[in-house]
Structures are given as structure tokens and as C-alpha cells.
């Protein structure tokens, strides 16, 4: 059980010191003599543990501390307090050893050489991670099947579309078969097809290699497609750490039944639901999942008035997250 823990974050904090600046020239001059240092707690006392083979999404509004958290987990930032263990080893103390076992993609920047063909960047990584040629070819073959990377391997990175570049970065991060993959907003700015391919790839490596994946995103599709577990961060703290289904049940345990009648006279009500809104001949009933089933509600309502059409709406993940951020 013990060695099943891939990532263990304990009491992790990161403070930034910023000099508070006053407006205008007089403010700037004042600042020279009296520096109003301010401490910003980007991440404060976070505990988190991720099992081998899990995919988790870390989400939160801009500036909530997601990036700082991921950057500490990948060894980029030195924590102000606390520690990050990857496979039992402290990343701050054994950086060189630990990073051999992680892959990182920061969606908004690239680790590829801008001026050269993609293959040259892969070749460099092959040397850096000491991957032997057979294993390298084999890995590339597998990744080519989903991402079609060989089509672009001879293209200079500067001539690539964003989608091609992100694919290249993802392959670059996986060449050395790391056990943990960190993805910071991997699908940002990508088209539907590329997003689809990327998600498929992520699911596939998770399934085949049992790669543990930590991703941050603003794309709710990523979360619905990829993750069972959701970490919501705000003001540097984890405010939710839960299963995707659980949070839906807890934050929004209701559904909405939309009924279209033939006319707008005598719209019926039902004691187990609230009539949310009536627009002409269309009525919206909100009901708790525990109080009544959708089928029963439809049956009972249709006894009272003849229906033309019905639809059931569930609360979307975006609504749930919006509510969670607001807490």
C-alpha cells in the first residue's frame, strides 16, 4: 500500500515577496526609500497525495496558485515550506534523480528547439535521458499511432501550428517513459480535433503504462473526458478534493425537467418539484434526485396536462465549478 503512493505533498507553501508600489513619480521615488514589502501566499499549507496510475485535474481561477503548485511539484520552484515526494523521494533535495522519472509539458511554452526540425529536439532528449536507440524507436512508434508524430518529425518547430507543437512537446515529455506526467494547460488554444487526439493519447498512456497524470486546465471537456478526481484550488488552498460524481451530487443534487405543452393555459405543478420558470408553453421543473424520479414526475405531470415534448437537464460541470469557486 505504501509504495502505491506516487506523489505525496505535505504542508506545502510558497510565498512571494512583492514590493508594493505607489502610483506616479512621487510614489516611485518614495518607494526607493521606503520599500513596502508584501508577502503573498500563493500556496499555503497544501496536502495532497496521488496514487500510481491516477489522473487528477487541478483546477482553479486564474491566480489561485495552480501553476505555483505544479511548479513546486516539478522542481521548478523551491517551496517556502513543506515537501514534495515523488515515488518516495524529495524533489527539492534530489532534483536530478527525481526529474528522470517525470515528464512536464507547460502548454504555453515549449522545450523544443525553435529553429531546428522536431527530430533534433528528440535526439537531444534521447541523449539527455540516456534512452537507447531501440527503446526510443519503440516509444516513438507507439506515440506515432495516436498522434501521427512521424508526419511532422522533419518539420522545423517554428513552422508548426500550435497543435503540432503541443503534440511535439507531449511526445518529448514522454520519450523517457516517465512514471509521472505533469501537464499545465495542455489543451489551451487547440482545435477540437487536436484536443480529441491529445485526450486519447493521455488516456492511452495512462491505461497502458499506468502513468500517473496531473493536469491543470480551464477546459471542462478535459476534466469530463480524463479525470475521475478533481482538485479545486482557490487562494492557495485546496477547497475541494473529490470524485467528479460526488461533487455533482453534493453541490448540485438536482435536475431540471423541461416540458413543452401544447398551450400555455393551466400549467400544472407538482408537490415534489418546484416550478422554476414558465415561458409560454414551456415549463421548467426543478426536482431533487432523492425526492422523485424523472419518470415518475413525467408520468404524474402528463396526467394533469398533455405534453408535447420533454427534456431533462443536469447541472453542467461549469456550473458546479462556478459554485465551488464562489464558496
Amino acid at each position: 500500500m505504501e509504495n502505491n503512493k506516487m506523489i505525496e505533498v505535505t504542508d506545502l507553501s510558497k510565498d512571494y515577496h512583492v514590493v508594493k508600489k505607489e502610483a506616479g513619480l512621487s510614489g516611485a521615488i518614495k518607494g526607493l526609500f521606503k520599500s513596502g514589502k508584501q508577502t503573498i501566499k500563493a500556496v499555503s499549507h497544501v496536502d495532497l497525495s496521488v496514487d500510481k496510475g491516477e489522473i487528477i485535474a487541478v483546477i482553479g481561477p486564474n491566480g489561485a496558485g495552480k501553476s505555483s503548485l505544479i511548479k513546486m511539484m516539478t522542481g521548478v520552484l523551491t517551496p517556502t515550506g513543506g515537501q514534495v515526494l515523488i515515488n518516495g523521494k524529495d524533489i527539492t533535495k534530489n532534483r536530478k534523480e527525481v526529474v528522470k522519472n517525470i515528464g512536464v509539458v507547460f502548454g504555453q511554452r515549449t522545450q523544443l528547439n525553435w529553429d531546428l526540425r522536431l527530430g533534433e529536439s528528440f535526439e537531444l532528449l534521447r541523449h539527455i535521458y540516456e534512452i537507447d536507440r531501440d527503446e526510443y524507436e519503440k516509444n516513438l512508434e507507439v506515440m506515432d499511432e495516436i498522434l501521427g508524430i512521424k508526419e511532422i518529425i522533419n518539420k522545423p518547430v517554428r513552422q508548426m501550428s500550435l497543435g503540432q507543437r503541443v503534440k511535439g512537446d507531449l511526445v518529448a515529455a514522454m520519450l523517457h517513459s516517465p512514471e509521472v506526467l505533469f501537464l499545465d494547460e495542455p489543451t489551451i488554444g487547440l482545435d477540437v480535433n487536436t484536443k480529441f487526439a491529445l485526450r486519447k493519447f493521455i488516456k492511452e498512456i495512462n491505461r497502458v503504462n499506468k502513468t500517473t497524470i496531473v493536469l491543470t486546465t480551464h477546459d471542462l471537456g478535459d476534466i469530463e473526458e480524463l479525470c475521475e478526481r478533481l482538485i479545486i484550488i482557490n487562494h492557495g488552498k485546496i477547497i475541494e478534493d473529490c470524485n467528479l460524481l460526488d461533487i455533482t451530487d453534493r453541490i448540485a443534487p438536482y435536475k431540471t425537467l423541461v416540458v413543452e405543452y401544447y398551450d400555455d393555459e393551466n400549467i400544472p405543478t407538482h408537490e415534489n418539484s418546484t416550478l422554476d420558470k414558465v415561458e409560454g408553453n414551456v415549463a421548467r421543473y426543478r426536482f431533487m434526485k432523492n425526492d422523485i424520479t424523472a419518470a415518475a414526475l413525467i408520468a404524474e405531470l402528463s396526467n394533469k396536462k398533455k405534453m408535447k415534448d420533454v427534456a431533462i437537464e443536469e447541472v453542467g460541470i461549469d456550473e458546479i465549478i462556478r459554485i465551488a469557486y464562489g464558496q
Partner: protein
Amino acid sequence: MKNAKIKCLLHTLAHYIDVTICHIRMAFLMIVEYPSNIAGWMISNPIQFILGFATIKFVVEQFGQINGWTYGQLAFLYGLSVISHALSMIFFVQGWFMGFYVVEGEFDRYLTRPLGVMYQFFFTNINIFGVTDLIPGILVFLYGCVESNFTWSIAKVICILLMLIGATFIRGGLYLCLGTTSFFTKSTMDFGQYTQEIMDKTTLYPLSMYPESMQFLLTYLIPIGWVSFYPISGLLGIDSGQTYGLLASVITLLVGLIVLAVAGLWFNYGLNKYESAGN
């Protein structure tokens, strides 16, 4: 146990050499990618130093000597100094652009790879264009050897090699020290030009032409005197106020190692303050 440790060390060394070769290969590929750049550098760099040397020639012809240094000896000093400058440009020039690396969050990439950050910082973008600076350096040096009737011996060849390594380290260490301030200031301030000016004014000419307080400063506090003046005085048998003779080259190497080590510690301290670039 000890054997295993040595084996591990050798493996690490071989790994770094392997990656370095890979970086150099990529640097060549990049030059081929932008061929017009080479033409520009090939022309402008040599001209810069040849003109500089022509200025010395003019001064010496007017006054005969500078502080007891003949024309040939000055060429010898100037040439070797340009050579160590060129070497520092090849291996350590990134120190000049540290501010850019810090502000743009370029260290993220180095920190997530299993190699030393300082190594990656200097060698990922190894500047093989610096070779263009070597050419005028070697030409002026050889000219100086002939003009000053320099007598060669194996000991002197070794001394020249040692002092060149030491001088390159001193330069590189100083670039790194200045650059590291960017971790604290978080500004893109580029120290390149200032460093170049200071280095040129203090290493291309004999240090003895400056006031004594200045010489003291440049010997003990910022050891620029060891980049060219002291070791070359030793090689040419000129009295520099220090009586080390050929040994001065060995001291240069030691000073170089110390400066680079101090710079490395300072750099690693700064790296802890690295904040990446927000997104």
C-alpha cells in the same frame, strides 16, 4: 564501494560529454539554418579587434613604448587576451543574458531535466560563433611572438594553455556573478556591454598603466589582472610588481577555478530565489 563511486563519476562525465557533443551538433545545424548570420559575424568581429590593435600600433609609434612594454610585447598581450575573450564568448556568453532567462522563465526547462542547471545554462545554447573572435586573437598573438622575439619551450606552451583556461574561467565567473543578480532584481538588464567595456580596458593593455589603487582593486578584489597582465608579464619576463615568473600562469588557473566556484555557489543561491514566469 570506492570502485562503484569512481565508475559512477566516470559515467556521469561520459554522459555530460555525450550531451555536449549533441549541443555542439545542434549549434552547427542552427548556423546552417541561418547562414547570413555567419557572414555578418565573420566580418564584424575580426574588424573590431584588428581596428583596436591598429590603435595600439599608432600609440606605440608615437610614444615608443607603454610603461616599458614594447610594441611586440603589447601585441603578445593583446592577442592572448582576445583569445581568452573568444573562449569565454564560446562557453560563457549566456551569463550576459541571464536577465532574459530569468524574466522569461527559461530556467523551467533546465530545472525539469536531469542535468546540472549551470551546465545546461551555458551549454544548451553554446555559442560557436565565438570562434570568429579567435581568428584575430591568434593572428595578433603570432605577430606579437615574432615581433617580441618570444622563445618557445614546452614549459611555456603549458603555461600559455593553463593561463588561457584560467583566464577564460575568470571571465566566465565574472559574467555569471553579474548575471546572477537578475535572480534578485528580476530585471532584463543586460550587463554584456558594460562587462565587455571593462574587460577590454583592463585586459588588452598592461595593467601597470593604471594608478596603484586601481591595480590593487583589479588584482585582489576583482581579479581581472590575472586574466592577462600577470601571467603574460611572467611569460615575457617583464616586472609586474609580482615575482612569480612562469608560476603566474598556474596562479591564473587557480584564481580562475576559485572565481568560477564562487560564481557557481552564488548562482545556486540565486536559483533558489527563481520564481519562474507566471501564467
